[in-house]
């Protein structure tokens, strides 16, 4: 009965986490290296790789443990949610996790059900209750549930009737067996596309590493072929070494592996983890994504996916509560072509209600016009709205009459609620106004012809107090207009169409008066159909069809499910950014389509392709594909998500559409759609956004899941990777944060590989000069600290606060998002460029220093330098070059950047002075003693260092300038745009003496 979605418990944390971590190819590799260093004699000590590995594992474990602890806490809040249980005739309060199957549970009004329940009885006499299933399927409308008849009277026997509006029910399924839990998908760790490319690069580097080691091993044995080289008199082996010649080749290979293992950056994983973890705080801190109303800001549940936000190609959004406020509002009505907007409607109505069968209405008419009268009468009568009483108020007194509505309406259609509410509003304005005479009329409700989605209309037959029989019908314009015989059809139609353009949900109202004879006839038809044993539905439909005709059109209403603030703007931006927006909703098609129009997902001009159940024969799908491959939009009533064959075609069609709307989707179907797109051949990055529990499976399925912290509970927010208060925040999330994080991490990954190529390749080259003896070029301290401290902070800081372009520009120009689409900064050509740059730099460092040393004196006092000076010289050039390379890539120099970049260079110098400055006690080697200082005291060393750094950085600068001038990207243009004015002045100044040239230049720039 316990609900759980965490990964670890206290007991299995260490083994399970270690196992998870060593499943990562990089961590496993470092573990191997570490073990090799422990076992065999290698050029570097085990500390050099053991320490960073320990650091990586610890940091990651802490991070994952912390995130899991948060999940634990959230689960606890659910599992410890109090529940009233009936035990031996008394109510006992326990925790929801203690519920067992068979327990009798008491649920009060507005409480959440703790598990799947069977309704035994309710406080209503008729044993009904109204339930919303938003957290299950996203439908926020109220549904009526009936208690099991046998147990309907239990409430008196158990003496709990003193509690109003309670539901007693017996638990059927609890904990992980509940419908909700079963609708979930198992939570698996999501990996971002960047991580996948990173792993691919890693494999390449692993291959490079192994081939380097193999090449060196082979060359070593080739070189050692002659005995004098194998074991010259000055370098005798020990006896033990001589005996081990069989495994020597293998240990040599391993030793080379250890020597070059730094090419796969240990600290990259720590830095990436830290970048993600710390970087996600900027999302949580963003005040633009803070919602005053809810009092919450954006929330980051998994920081692993920050950069994935910059890669989204498909956005799957829920409709109700995500795109819309889930809050209907009456906008206007149109009677006979006259448009009325609220507060001006000169009609007063009062709604009264006595249960579902009878609807009595007191209608006050201030206007004589017959049609208006009838119109509002129709609205009042033709609905299935129930009045729900507020428990605290004495039920006799109606709040309406006090001018304060203490009763409210619930219905299975939110539109109807809006309409009826609006009518009530009219009374209030009316009573203040010119109410003169109030004519109360009483209607008897005879028949309700219920709504269904095929007819798309509903009707009621009423008998007025004067004995007239009237049929009121209300429905979608397409289903009403063909049946209208009189009335001002043209005017109303024009109005309806205009409303639809504005994205309002419209309903047409019509009536027909029936003579007693006709009424008898219809009664007969209806009863016949209702009692039919076979094809009842079909016969009912036929009967309805016969009855609902020859209408007189009264008018139309327009209701708005208000879109969330800036939803349309957000969708427009997302589409401009190259994302495809799909709406997946459980709602019916018309409603959903209206929202899509309102949110500018569909435009009037877009061609709409509907795929409904009736047309999903395979052949027709093929036709559709053939004829309409240029279609911009399609809708689909998806049933059962199709078999394998359909799937392909569906995918093919929908990928060619600019926007897709899928209606009537069950939660798992939403996930299936997402899965379908994910599995298509381009493997696009998908994002799912929703607010209800019905969106959870899709949120979990998509690459990135975003939850809206809305009205429908926090299930979605809890299971999402990121939670935001409103849909509009998605824009900043993707276009700004996603873009920036992607650029940052892409640079981080490439730079890490680059700096390690620069680091290790000279060491590889050095092997050719030291007889392939695995002699390290750099001192142990440098080997260990290079990645941990000399070059780690600048790139970490860069990856946290770099802003290659301002936030405002990113928001203003969504097309910039396309610049980073499809993992563009981590593609193979870019990777190759970085690697080549690294190799080039490494060659410059090594051979530059080599020729500089070239067997000559380096100082003015004739003394010579040794190999450690050589290594330190290379290392100094290396540290400065890679740091300055990052400085060249930095576009956003805050004081922190200055501090960290110059500070880290300074730290290197100070460390080197210190490391070589004293004789270290307890250490058995003092090879670095005064090496750095001696090097700095030599003029050529300075000149050489400056020259080598310059040459190393030169190609990258030239490439950058050339690319910017010849093939500027949109981002680069936007960067220039920022300083256009300054450039303008510079250009004019430069060219002022060539007046004609200057004119041309200024004109173009302007």
């Amino acid at each position, binding site marked *: 009965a316990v609900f759980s979605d965490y990964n670890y418990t206290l007991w299995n944390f260490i083994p399970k986490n270690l196992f998870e971590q060593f499943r990562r190819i990089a961590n496993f590799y470092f573990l191997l290296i570490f073990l090799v260093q422990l076992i065999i004699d290698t050029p570097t000590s085990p500390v050099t790789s053991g320490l960073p590995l320990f650091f990586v594992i610890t940091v990651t474990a802490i991070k994952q443990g912390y995130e899991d602890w948060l999940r634990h806490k959230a689960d606890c809040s659910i599992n410890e949610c109090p529940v009233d249980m009936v035990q031996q005739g008394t109510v006992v309060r326990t925790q929801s996790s203690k519920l067992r199957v068979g327990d009798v549970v008491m649920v009060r009004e507005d409480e959440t059900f703790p598990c799947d329940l069977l309704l035994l009885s309710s406080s209503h006499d008729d044993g009904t209750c109204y339930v919303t299933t938003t957290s299950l399927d996203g439908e926020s409308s109220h549904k009526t549930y009936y208690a099991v008849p046998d147990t309907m009277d239990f409430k008196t026997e158990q003496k709990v009737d003193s509690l109003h509006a309670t539901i007693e029910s017996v638990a059927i399924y609890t904990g992980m067996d509940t419908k909700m839990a079963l609708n979930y998908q198992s939570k698996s760790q999501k990996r971002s596309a960047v991580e996948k490319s990173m792993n691919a690069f890693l494999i390449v580097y692993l291959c490079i590493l192994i081939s380097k080691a193999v090449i060196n091993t082979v060359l070593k044995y080739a070189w050692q072929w002659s005995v004098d080289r194998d074991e010259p008199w000055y370098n005798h082996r020990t006896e033990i070494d001589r005996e081990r010649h069989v495994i020597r080749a293998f240990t040599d290979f391993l030793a080379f592996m250890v020597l070059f293992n730094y090419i796969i950056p240990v600290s990259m994983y720590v830095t990436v983890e830290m970048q993600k973890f710390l970087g996600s705080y900027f999302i949580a801190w963003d005040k633009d994504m803070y919602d005053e109303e809810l009092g919450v800001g954006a929330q980051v549940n998994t920081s692993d996916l920050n950069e994935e936000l910059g890669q989204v190609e498909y956005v799957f959004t829920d409709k109700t509560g995500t795109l819309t406020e889930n809050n209907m509002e009456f906008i206007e009505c149109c009677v006979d072509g006259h448009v009325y907007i609220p507060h001006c409607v000169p009609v007063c109505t009062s709604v009264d209600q006595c249960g579902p069968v009878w609807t009595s209405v007191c209608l006050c008419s201030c206007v004589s016009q017959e049609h208006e009268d009838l119109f509002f009468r129709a609205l009042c009568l033709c609905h299935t709205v129930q009045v729900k009483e507020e428990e605290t108020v004495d039920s006799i007194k109606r709040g309406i009459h006090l001018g304060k509505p203490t009763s409210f309406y619930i219905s299975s259609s939110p539109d109807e609620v809006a309409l009826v509410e609006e009518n009530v509003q009219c009374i209030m304005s009316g009573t203040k106004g010119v109410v003169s005479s109030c004519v109360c009329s009483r209607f008897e409700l005879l028949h309700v012809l219920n709504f269904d989605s095929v007819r798309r209309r509903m009707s009621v037959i009423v008998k007025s107090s004067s004995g007239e029989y009237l049929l009121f019908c209300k429905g979608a314009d397409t289903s009403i207009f063909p049946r209208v015989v009189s009335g001002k059809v043209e005017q109303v139609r024009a109005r309806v169409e205009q409303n639809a353009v504005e994205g309002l949900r419209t309903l047409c109202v019509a009536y027909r008066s029936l003579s007693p004879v006709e009424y008898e006839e219809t009664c007969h038809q209806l009863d016949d159909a209702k009692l039919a044993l076979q094809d009842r539905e079909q016969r009912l439909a036929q009967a309805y069809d016969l009855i609902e005709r020859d209408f007189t059109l009264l008018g139309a209403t327009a209701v708005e499910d208000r879109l969330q603030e800036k939803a349309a703007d957000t969708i427009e931006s997302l589409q401009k950014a190259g994302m495809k927006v799909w709406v997946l909703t459980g709602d019916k098609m018309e409603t959903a389509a209206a929202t899509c129009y309102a949110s500018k997902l569909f435009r009037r001009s877009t061609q709409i392709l509907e795929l409904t159940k009736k047309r999903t024969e395979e052949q027709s799908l093929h036709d559709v594909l053939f004829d309409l491959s240029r279609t911009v939009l399609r809708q689909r009533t998806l049933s059962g998500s199709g078999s394998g064959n359909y799937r392909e075609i569906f995918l093919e069609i929908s990928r060619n559409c600019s926007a897709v709307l899928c209606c009537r989707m069950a939660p798992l179907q939403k996930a299936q759609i997402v899965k379908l797109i994910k599995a298509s051949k381009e493997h696009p990055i998908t994002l799912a956004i929703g607010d209800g529990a019905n969106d959870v499976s899709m949120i979990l399925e998509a690459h990135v899941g975003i939850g809206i912290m809305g009205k429908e509970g926090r299930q979605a927010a809890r299971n999402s990777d990121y939670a935001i208060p409103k849909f509009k925040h998605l824009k900043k999330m993707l276009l700004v944060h996603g873009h920036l994080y992607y650029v940052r991490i892409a640079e981080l990954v490439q730079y890490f590989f680059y700096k390690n190529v620069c680091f290790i390749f000279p060491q590889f080259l050095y092997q050719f000069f030291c007889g392939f003896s695995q002699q390290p070029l750099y001192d142990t301290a440098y080997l260990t600290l290079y990645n941990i401290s000399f070059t780690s902070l600048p790139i970490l800081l860069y990856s946290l606060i770099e802003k290659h372009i301002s936030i405002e520009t990113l928001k203003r120009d969504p097309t910039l998002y396309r610049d980073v689409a499809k993992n563009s900064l981590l593609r193979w050509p870019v990777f190759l460029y970085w690697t080549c740059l690294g190799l080039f730099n490494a060659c410059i460092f090594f051979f530059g220093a080599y020729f500089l040393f070239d067997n000559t004196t380096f100082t003015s006092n004739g003394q010579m330098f040794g190999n450690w000076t050589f290594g330190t010289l290379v290392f100094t050039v290396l540290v400065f070059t890679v740091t300055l390379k990052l400085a060249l890539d930095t576009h956003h*120099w805050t004081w*922190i950047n200055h501090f960290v970049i110059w500070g880290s260079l300074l730290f290197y110098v100070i460390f080197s002075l210190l490391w070589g400055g004293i004789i270290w006690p307890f250490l058995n080697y003092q090879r670095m003693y005064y090496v750095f200082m001696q090097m700095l005291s030599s003029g050529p060393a300075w000149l050489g260092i400056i020259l080598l750094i310059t040459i190393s950085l030169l190609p990258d600068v030239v490439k950058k300038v050339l690319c910017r001038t010849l093939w500027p990207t949109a981002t680069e243009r936007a960067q220039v745009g920022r300083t256009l004015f300054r450039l303008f002045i510079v250009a004019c100044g430069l060219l002022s003496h060539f007046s004609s040239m200057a004119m041309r230049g200024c004109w173009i720039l302007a």
Partner: protein
Amino acid sequence: MGKVKANAGPLARRPDNSAFKQQRLPAWSPMLTAQTVLPFFYGMATVCVLLGVWLLVTVQNTHELKVDYTHAGSCDKCFEKRKDRANANQSCNCTVVFNIENTFKGDVFFYYGLINFHQNLRQYMDSRDDGQMIGRNKNLKNPSSYCEPFMKDKNGLPIAPCGAVANSMFNDSFTLVYHSAASRQVVPLFRKGITWYTDKNVKFRNPQVENKTLTLAQVFEGTGQPLYWQKPVYDLDPWDRNNNGFINEDLIVWMREAAFPNFKKLYGVLNRAIEPFTEGLPAGNYSVDISYNFPVEYFQGRKEVVLSTVSWFGGQNNFLPIAYLVTGCLILLLAVILTAVWWKFAL
């Protein structure tokens, strides 16, 4: 499901509006455009070319002379002799004659050079004990195991200085002779001041003993001499008692391992106090008398004597000036290309 949250006021969780948290820190946003880069390029090109020219002129004023004596002149017989390990204890002297055409002005440095001697093999480089040479008593009698197989001698005594590096110390000695028209004059060389000051005074120390009256031989009692040495470490310099033990300058010079298999090491500096060497080495005929001990035949090595003068800029190294000149020209070329591109496309 449950909605449990601690609501401490609606604005309690409102994010701070600080510049850092909102990523709005004031910043300088440079761009690598042609306009910003070109002035730098032209400036750098000029500086590089000027520097290159200046360095080239400086380098032209330095002199260097290399004399390979592996089997030159009378050294041929010594070379043959050293082929046989059995002759290791027999001394062999030879002479090489050479001619200096232009006067070496200024300080002249006398180097010995080795070709194809790998001082940078890992096992070789690790085979030393800095702790011992720094004068730690613990390490004197108990050297690091890295010194294997040169840690203990045949009698089981710990070797001082232990390890392969010290063991293979270069042991040829040279006497440079100037043959002027009138006479034959030994060129005076300082055999001290050839090490880094810090090495001589800090990094290499003889073992510290409380009893200051002990001779160096007594201090080193209980240790063996390196296997290939003919003299113990406390007896390396028979002329200067203070140049013995671990602080012997030739030893210190040797212990600074060279980065590459071809290297030279400082042997002595010309003493310019004596005529006719006050201006440096005058042009004329010279010879070097060599005590030929160091065998190089086994590894196809060669030995040489190098005489060199230095400028502020070090010895004769043409790499740096040429590199500066080439870089300067390259940058100039790139700058011109960039200017053309910029002119054509950006305007």
